[in-house]
């Protein structure tokens, strides 16, 4: 994961840095480390994953040690530490969703996309994984698609097929 030499350096755009500044302004001046989680989300929304050089840049921006960024990025499950599909599908696999068929949706996705959990399709468009409770238990099975985290609820195999076709034609 943290192989620096394999990853190209990043330069954050001025638009992204302006967003960074806005976020940093939410906290007391000497507590800007609080911006770390929101900043990593902004980085991920821009690059679709969080690379080590990007984390180093975030550390530089917040004036903290790179390890402080790595330990956070590896603790929280939302940050992708390797490239994902353009549409990263995350299906809830926790109890209440399983009561209404989440496991079937996961295996259907595997067949439909022809890749295993965590892998990216050859065209680079899709990847999927099971995640823990997404707090939409009454509308299960559910999946979300990053980076916008749009929700799709009450899934059936047919609605998943339609969703994938729609995304392909987008």
């Amino acid at each position, binding site marked *: 994961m943290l192989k620096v030499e394999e990853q190209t350096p990043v330069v954050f755009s001025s638009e992204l840095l302006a967003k960074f500044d806005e976020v940093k302004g939410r906290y007391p001046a000497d507590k800007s480390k609080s911006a770390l989680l929101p900043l990593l989300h902004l980085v991920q929304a821009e690059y679709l994953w969080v690379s080590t050089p990007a984390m180093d840049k975030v550390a530089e921006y917040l004036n903290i040690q790179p390890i402080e960024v790595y330990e956070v990025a590896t*603790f*929280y*499950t939302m940050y992708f530490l390797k490239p994902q599909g353009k549409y990263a599908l995350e299906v809830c696999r926790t*109890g209440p969703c399983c009561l209404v068929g989440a496991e079937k949706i996961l295996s259907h996705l595997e067949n439909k996309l022809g890749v295993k959990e965590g892998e990216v399709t050859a065209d680079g468009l899709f990847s999927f994984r099971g995640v823990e409770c997404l707090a939409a238990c*009454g*509308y299960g099975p559910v999946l979300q698609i990053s980076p916008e985290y749009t929700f799709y609820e009450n899934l059936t195999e047919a609605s998943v097929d339609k969703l994938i076709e729609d995304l392909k034609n987008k």
Partner: protein
Amino acid sequence: MSRKLLLEHINVPGINTLEVYRQKGGYRAVEKALKTLTPEEIVEEVKKSGLRGRGGAGFPTGMKWSFLAKPEGVARYLVCNADESEPGTFKDRYLMTYIPHALIEGMIVSSFALGAKVSYIYVRGEMMPQIRILEKAIAEAKAAGWLGKNILGTGYDLELYVQPGGGAYICGEETALLESLEGKRGNPRIKPPFPAIAGLYGCPTVVNNVESIAAVVPIINDGGDEYAKIGIGRSTGTKLISASGNLVKPGVYEIELGLPVEEFIYSDEYCGGIANGKRLKATVAGGSSVPILPANLTLKYANGEPRLMSYESLSEGGFATGTMMGSGGFIAFDEDQCIVRNTWNFSRFYHHESCGQCSPCREGTGWMEKVLHKIEHGHGNMEDVDLLWDIQRKIEGNTICPLGDAAAWPVASAIRHFRDEFEWHIKEPVKSQSQNYGIANYATPIEKAPVTEEK
């Protein structure tokens, strides 16, 4: 129809906008609080209301507020816990999606009461759509003068920010949430000191659930005494219940505390019964952490009296025959659901979400997951059931935060009430892979329970 305090206007078109929310009487509580009440009087009203924390612990909110230290010259913070991640719970998402100003109004009143000049709403990262909704609503409120400098000309200043989490159940624990808000891993802190003394940035801090904060609005509008008239006993007011699982109408319902559980499950006003004409086998009444109960004990106490949706009634009988209100995540299991499989699923969840600080939880949750996986997949031994019991006993009470207990209780209660089903999985390793144990005697009234199990 029971009274609705939080969701009264939920179906009004445009209620998510400031304009419509205001037309329906929104922000009256801010006017009343800032112009006519002192912070102490607001705390007093909340105390009188008997409001109990809606996040899961059920600790009286007014009392929590009164513990807040107020040293001179030190900032105080209010942090709203919108990290809703307890499996089975999705009420806060619902409230924030459809009526975001209810939370913002509650935040303004509560921040004023606590003397906070900057407040944060910590929303779980997966809820990006809700974060966008809240940020838009905050911008609206600020443009209209409900936030910012000198609110309503009273001299009170308040900035309100939304903080996204990163995807970690543990950040729903208040000290882990504060660590996360400080830009660190979500490792719960050792208490004391409690956040009321040293919370965010070491300053006195109150952390409250979304629903608790939203409930402050009707409490201020109608008065704490009026609020306390709703409900039953020490369970005052209304509660949002997230209903999921095999129900005809899963969703979020606002109930007056004290509603019979049977009415909640079967009446058309609420869940409308069990889906597909099946029978109820079991429920988890308050989110995945609370003990699972078979259908018979869900509907009635062991002595046959009806069980009600209230903090006291749900816990009647202790862990032997009762459960807990928790966060109000009500999960229903129909007759074809497998308790072993569900217990394994929940154990995997807790193993995945353990922060890793305390050995009993870090090691124990993984161990339980493995043993349960073994039993579920037809490779279990009889000793495994006792082993599971032993492991959960050694986690419970031996960790810094309640995640350990939360991981132990579902396993303990599943064995306590459904041991037959675990043993059947072990005795019938092949059959259990293709069929379910079924409802057995779990729906039979206790006093008539047969001594031997049904075929």
